[in-house]
């Protein structure tokens, strides 16, 4: 495995999912603002898409409204748009590049979601602040305590 690691392995995040819908439908819900607003989470959030110009160089602005009444602005520029195949966008503040690839598999679609950060340090910063924003810290803390307990066992 070590040899397969790319130079980006410590600053990227990849998630994949096989979706039970044809690629045309998946593309539609990914590219039309009224659809995105319905699923672009996180849980408990609603979204307003102010601008979505789906062409290379086009602006994408989305506001996430948190359950606590706080608004989170998101601004991106599309870098690459290949209908039914691929969307690449540069997100700003925080800065990262997302590549979403769509692969038609009959009536299903395989989605590959790749996020590339500027550096491992920057990724960790984003990850931490994101988790804090979502109130996930408690879970992580619980886990950390558990893991610390395990480490203590090793060393004793």
């Amino acid at each position, binding site marked *: 495995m070590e040899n397969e690691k790319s130079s980006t392995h410590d600053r990227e*995040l990849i*998630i994949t*999912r*096989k*979706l*039970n*819908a044809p690629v045309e*439908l*998946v593309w539609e*819900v*990914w590219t039309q603002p009224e*659809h995105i607003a*319905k*699923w*672009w*989470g*996180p*849980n408990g959030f609603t979204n307003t898409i102010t601008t979505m110009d789906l062409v290379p160089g086009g602006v994408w602005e989305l506001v996430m409204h948190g359950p606590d009444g706080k608004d989170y602005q998101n601004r991106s520029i599309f870098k690459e748009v290949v209908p039914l195949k691929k969307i690449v966008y540069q997100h700003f503040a925080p800065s990262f590049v997302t590549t979403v690839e769509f692969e038609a598999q009959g009536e299903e679609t395989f*989605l590959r*979601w790749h*996020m590339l950060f500027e550096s491992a340090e920057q*990724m*960790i910063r*984003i*990850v*931490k602040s*994101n*988790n804090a924003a*979502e109130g*996930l810290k408690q*879970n*992580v803390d619980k*886990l*950390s305590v*558990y*893991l610390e307990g*395990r*480490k203590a*066992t*090793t060393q004793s």
Partner: protein
Amino acid sequence: MRARRDVYQAIADPTRRAIIGMLAEQPQNVNTIAEQFDVTRQAISLHVKILSDCGLIFIRKEGRDHICEARLDSLSEVSVWVEQYKKHWESKLDSLESYLEQLKKERYGK
């Protein structure tokens, strides 16, 4: 639902937590681990495989033995945070998935 391999899954199960605990004290081979539990060896092998897939243990072959070692360094705070962040994006896909189901129902009635 396909299986997800992350630290959360690894420690979600009490048997796996017990295995990590045992291995944290000293490396052991799979059979020795299995002897200490009241479940089948196959069940333990599966738990060991999951822990290995999650990167929490490393399996080293020594002759016919498969020695398992805990890799607790991989449980650093950082990897925990990253896993949590990944979950955030996974939940977005969950949401996309259920929205697609809803749309399909509305449009095609199935």
